[in-house]
């Protein structure tokens, strides 16, 4: 199953992914570089700090040696606090003997460890103590490092070296600061570029495409006057021009078509009038003649004439009716119809046909169901079914009409005791010009009556179907019509 994903997600999805990648890679690179730089500068700083402070420390060390270090401790604490990275200072002689260790200052006093002389056992450090220049040595963790700072006195004497302990822990807070700054600035620039791209996309792509889409929908719904207004000199501009041209064409086709349909409907109306008018005198006067003809040859001719004239009449009336129903322009007028009254009325109007064949009609419709239909069309619907039930019935047969309300529909059944229908006939009965097989061949049948019924029932959103148990077993026509809202109680 394909999920609908709008143009926006396709345009902005990849863009967002690119921006996220750019955001992370550039952030990581910049943060790394900044961190390294900061680290380097701390180390350089600490070297010069050691360099500058060594003379002062050793001078004061000498000066206050005798007075129990009290003053010296003050000074050295000052030195340590002045640089946030240094946390410990040792004074060593070149043999590695520890003369002083700031770690041994406890609550402002220097407690010399009582175990006596202490030495450094690391050979590398001992070696470095005698270097003329300062040397840097990192611990394994890369966070702490030491600077061995020699103290060459005047005339080249070199008795002491200082061992400074530095920590890069302050980098961590610095790192966080850099992180926030970098993320903020990159984030901001990405947001701004995204907004610019969003605006450009919207202005040149999504907005015009939505306009085109809206236009397409308007045209689809039949508003051929709708035109799209996009002034762009690009593919979308071309698309707009083509679209508007297409709409022009459609409009003119539609107008031509409408005129043709109007002409056709007018012609049908005129022909209809001219064809129907002379049929009245012919059919009715033939009936009069039938009563009093003594000449036997004429007596033979008359039924043939009558049959053909009736067929012609049926054909004219029903063809015009189906043409009217098939026309795109519907002139039906919907009104509320009381099923019981209307059907009773139609049965009364067809009484002469029933009497003619001695057919008994049993009308069991007794509820006042209201439906919505064109009254004339409803009359044709029921008349056609009824006429079939009479014409295909046996002399002295019976017609039973029942109705039943089912939820929001009414179902009407019209059952006859006539010749019945085969399965094949049932399948095609509603096709235009279908006349069934020879057993049903009835000259007056046009094969249009039920097709007309189907058109009418479709107009009122109902259903029509037939059932028959076979030859000479009668036929039941069912129609199901939605009830008017008035009937539906709740």
């Amino acid at each position: 199953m394909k999920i609908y994903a709008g143009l926006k997600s396709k345009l902005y999805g990849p863009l967002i992914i690119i921006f996220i990648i750019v955001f992370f890679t550039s952030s990581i690179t910049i943060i790394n570089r900044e961190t390294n730089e900061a680290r380097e500068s701390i180390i350089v700083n600490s070297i010069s700090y050691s360099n500058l402070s060594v003379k002062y420390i050793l001078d004061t060390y000498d000066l206050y040696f005798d007075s129990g270090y009290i003053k010296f401790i003050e000074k050295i604490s000052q030195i340590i606090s002045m640089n946030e990275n240094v946390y410990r200072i040792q004074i060593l002689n070149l043999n590695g003997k520890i003369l002083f260790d700031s770690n041994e200052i406890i609550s402002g006093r220097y407690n010399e460890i009582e175990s006596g002389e202490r030495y450094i056992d690391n050979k590398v450090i001992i070696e470095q103590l005698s270097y003329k220049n300062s040397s840097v040595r990192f611990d394994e963790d890369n966070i702490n490092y030491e600077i061995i700072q020699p103290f060459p006195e005047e005339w080249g004497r070199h008795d002491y070296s200082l061992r400074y302990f530095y920590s890069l822990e302050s980098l961590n807070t610095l790192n966080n600061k850099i992180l926030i700054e970098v993320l903020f600035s990159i984030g901001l620039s990405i947001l701004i570029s995204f907004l610019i791209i969003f605006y450009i996309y919207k202005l040149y792509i999504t907005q015009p495409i939505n306009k085109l889409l809206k236009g397409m929908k308007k045209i689809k719904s039949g508003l051929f006057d709708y035109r799209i207004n996009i002034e762009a000199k690009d593919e979308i501009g071309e698309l707009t021009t083509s679209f508007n041209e297409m709409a022009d064409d459609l409009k003119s086709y539609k107008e031509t078509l409408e005129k043709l349909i109007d002409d056709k409907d007018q012609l049908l109306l005129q022909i209809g009038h001219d064809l129907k008018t002379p049929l009245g005198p012919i059919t009715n006067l033939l009936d009069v003649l039938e009563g009093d003809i003594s000449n036997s040859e004429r007596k033979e001719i008359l039924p043939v004439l009558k049959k053909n004239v009736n067929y012609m009449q049926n054909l004219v009336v029903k063809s015009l009716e189906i043409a009217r129903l098939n026309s795109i322009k519907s002139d039906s007028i919907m009104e509320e119809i009381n099923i019981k009254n209307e059907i009773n009325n139609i049965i009364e109007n067809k009484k002469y046909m029933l009497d003619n064949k001695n057919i008994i009609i049993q009308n069991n419709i007794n509820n006042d169901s209201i439906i919505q239909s064109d009254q004339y069309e409803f009359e044709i619907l029921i008349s056609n079914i009824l006429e079939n039930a009479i014409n295909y019935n046996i002399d002295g047969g019976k017609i039973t009409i029942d109705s039943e309300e089912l939820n929001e529909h009414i179902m009407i059944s019209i059952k006859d005791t006539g010749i019945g229908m085969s399965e094949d006939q049932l399948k095609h009965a509603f096709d235009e010009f279908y006349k069934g097989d020879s057993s049903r061949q009835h000259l007056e049948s046009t094969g249009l009556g039920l097709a007309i019924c189907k058109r009418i029932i479709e107009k009122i959103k109902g259903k029509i179907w037939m059932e028959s148990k076979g030859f000479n077993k009668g036929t039941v026509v069912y129609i199901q019509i939605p009830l008017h809202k008035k009937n539906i109680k709740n």
Partner: protein
Amino acid sequence: MKKILIVDDEIEQIYTIEKTFDKLFKGEFKIISATSGEKCFKQLEKNLPDIIILDLMMPIMDGWQVLEKLRTSEKWKNIPVIILTARTDGFARHAGKLMANDYISKPINIHELKIRIEKIIN
């Protein structure tokens, strides 16, 4: 005997109804006629019918005009009218139903016409 006034510009249509009514329902109806809208009112002055059968398509004064004049007059507004027409378009059907008592489309079936007439006047 009920009196029927047929208004139609085609004489043969009038003749058909006259003849068939005479043959098939002898003695039940008296048919009088007028071949134009104007003549219809002249007939009405002389003979007041029980029902009028009115053709819609007539020259000069058509069925609609006749119907309107009938319905707006004091004397004749209560005479029932059945419209007779070959038109089955929505407008004709609807207006016919609103203004007349019944509406029957051509080609007419005499038996059905009789039933419809009886339904109205009885």
